[in-house]
C-alpha cells in the first residue's frame, strides 16, 4: 500500500522529532560521561584533567552515599506500598455503584494536578508546622505534644507528601484496569459460591497484576527523581538526602562536577534497569 515516495516522505516527517530527541539524549549524556572521568571544579581551577575512575570510587565510598541510597529506597518503597495498596482499595471502592461517582473521582485525582512546590509547601507549613499546623492542633486537641514532623519524622513526612501526590495516579490507572474486568467472570465466581475475599484474590487481583506492574515501574522512575518536595521542605537534611538530591548538591551546590557526574551515571544506569522492564511491557502491547 505504501509507495516508495510516501515512505521517504514519512522518513522526512519523522526526522525533526528523531534528531531533536537524539541530540537531547546524546549530547548531555556524552558530556556527563566525559566529566565523570575528570577532576572538574568550575569555581576552583576548572578542568583539572583526567582522573580515570576516581570519581566513581569516591562517590560510592563517600560517607553520604549509602545513607542516600537507603533514603531513596525507603522513600520509593514506602510510597509504592502506600499508593499501590490504597490505590487498589480505592479503585475497588470507586468501581461500586454509588451516587456522585464522577465528583468523587474528581476529588480523588485532584492532588495529581497540584504543582509539587505547592503541595510540599502547603503540607510543610499548614499541616506539619509544629506550632500552627493543622496536625499540631489535632495533636493538642487530644492532649498530645505536637510533633516536629519534618525533623523528628522527616522520612515519614516526605513519604506522606509524595504518596498524596501519587495516590491519584495509581488509583486512576487501577480503576481503569478494574473497569475492563469482565463482570460475567465475577458473577460466575459468585454463583460458584466464592466469598468476596476469594473473588478478590482469585479474580480481581490477578486481573490487576499487569496494571500494578505498570504503576510500580512508572512511579519508580519518577520517584527516583523527586526533587522539589525535598528542595522546599528539608533541603536534604534529617536523613532525607536521596541519591538525586545528593547529586544535585555535588553538582550545583559544591560545584564538584566530576564527582556529581559520576553519581549521575549511576542514577542513569539505575533508571535504565527499571526502564527496560517497562519498555518490554509497552512493547508487548504495541504488537497487539
Amino acid at each position, binding site marked *: 500500500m505504501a509507495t516508495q515516495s510516501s515512505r521517504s516522505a514519512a522518513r522526512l516527517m519523522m526526522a525533526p*522529532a528523531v534528531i531533536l530527541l537524539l541530540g537531547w539524549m546524546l549530547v548531555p549524556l556524552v558530556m556527563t560521561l566525559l566529566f565523570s572521568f575528570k577532576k572538574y571544579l568550575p569555581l576552583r581551577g576548572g578542568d583539572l584533567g583526567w582522573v580515570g575512575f576516581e570519581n566513581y570510587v569516591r562517590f560510592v565510598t563517600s560517607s553520604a552515599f549509602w545513607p542516600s541510597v537507603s533514603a531513596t529506597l525507603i522513600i520509593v518503597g514506602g510510597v509504592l506500598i502506600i499508593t499501590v495498596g490504597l490505590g487498589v482499595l480505592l479503585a475497588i471502592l470507586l468501581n461500586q455503584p454509588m451516587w456522585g461517582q464522577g465528583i468523587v473521582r474528581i476529588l480523588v*485525582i485532584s492532588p495529581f494536578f497540584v504543582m509539587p512546590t505547592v503541595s510540599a509547601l502547603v503540607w510543610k507549613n499548614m499541616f506539619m508546622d509544629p506550632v500552627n499546623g493543622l496536625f499540631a492542633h489535632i495533636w493538642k486537641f487530644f492532649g498530645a505534644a505536637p510533633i516536629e514532623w519534618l525533623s523528628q519524622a522527616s522520612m515519614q513526612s516526605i513519604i506522606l507528601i509524595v504518596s498524596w501526590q501519587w495516590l491519584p495516579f495509581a488509583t486512576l490507572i487501577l480503576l481503569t484496569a478494574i473497569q475492563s474486568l469482565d463482570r460475567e467472570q465475577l458473577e460466575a465466581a459468585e454463583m460458584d459460591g466464592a466469598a468476596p475475599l476469594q473473588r478478590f484474590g482469585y479474580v480481581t487481583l490477578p486481573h490487576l497484576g499487569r496494571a500494578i506492574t505498570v504503576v510500580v515501574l512508572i512511579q519508580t522512575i519518577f520517584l527516583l527523581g523527586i526533587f522539589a518536595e525535598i528542595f522546599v521542605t528539608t533541603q536534604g537534611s534529617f536523613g532525607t538526602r536521596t541519591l538525586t538530591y545528593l547529586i544535585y548538591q555535588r553538582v550545583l551546590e559544591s560545584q564538584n562536577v566530576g564527582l556529581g557526574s559520576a553519581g549521575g551515571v549511576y542514577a542513569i544506569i539505575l533508571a535504565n534497569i527499571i526502564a527496560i522492564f517497562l519498555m518490554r511491557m509497552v512493547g508487548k502491547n504495541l504488537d497487539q
Partner: protein
Amino acid sequence: MARAVTSRRKIINTAAAWTVGLLIFFPILWTILTSFKTEATAIADPPVFIGFDWTLENYATVLERSDYARFLWNSIIIAGGSTILGILVAVPAAWSMAFVPSKRTKDILLWMLSTKMLPAVGVLYPIYLIFIKLGLLDSRTGLVIVLMLMNLPIIVWMLYTYFREIPGEILEAARMDGASLKEEILYVLTPMAVPGIASTLLLNFILAWNEAFWTLNLTAAKAAPLTAFIASYSSPEGLFYAKLSAASTMAIVPILILGWFSQKQLVSGLTFGAVK
C-alpha cells in the same frame, strides 16, 4: 428484598467513597479556604473552617507585590510554548508512524519513550553549561526548549495512539480521489485528529506547568515561572499562611480545572498505552 439490600449497599458505598474523596481533597480545600482568611484567622487555635469573615485582601497583596503577573506570564509562555512547539514537531512524526509504519517504527517509538526515563539530575550540569554558553540560562526560550524536549516522547506517543485509531480506508479513499499528501493531511486527517490533538495539548500543558526540576534549576529572577515563585515562599514568607494560600490557589486552580477535563486521556497518556 434484593432491591433493599443493593440500595443499602449503595448508601454505604456512597458514604465511604465521599469520605475518602473529601479526605484526599482536603489539603486543597483547606488551602483555598485559608486564602480567604486574615493572617490571624489562618493560624487561629482552634482552627476555623468556614465561619470566618471572608476577605480578598490576600489576593490583593499577592497581586501587588512580587510581580505575580510576571511569574504567571512566564508559566503561560513556558508551558504553552513548549507544548505547541512539541505538537508541531510531533504531528508529522506520529502521522508517519501511524500511517506508513515500517519494521523500525516500534523500535523508534520505544526508544523515544526511553529518553523520557533518563533521570534529569544525570544531565543537569551539561544542560546548565550549554545554557550558560548559549546565553539561555534564566530565559523563557531555554525553558521552552527543555520542556518541549522533555515532553516530546509523550506527545508523539499520545498522537500516535490517536492517529492509529483513524481508519486507513478513509485516507485511501482520499488518495483515490487524487488528494495530494498535503491535502490529505490538511483536509482529511487534521479534522479527524483535532480531538486527539486537543487532549494531548491539554495534558502536556499541565505537565509542563507543574514541572519543577528544570524550572527551579535553570531560572533566577527573570524567567522564573509559578513553581519557582511558590518555592520562594519556603521561608520565611511561608509563615504568612493566608498569603501563601492565595498564591498557591492562583497557581493550582486553573490547572485543576483543566485537569478535570483531561482525566479521560490521562491514563493512556501517562502509561504509554500499557493500560487501557
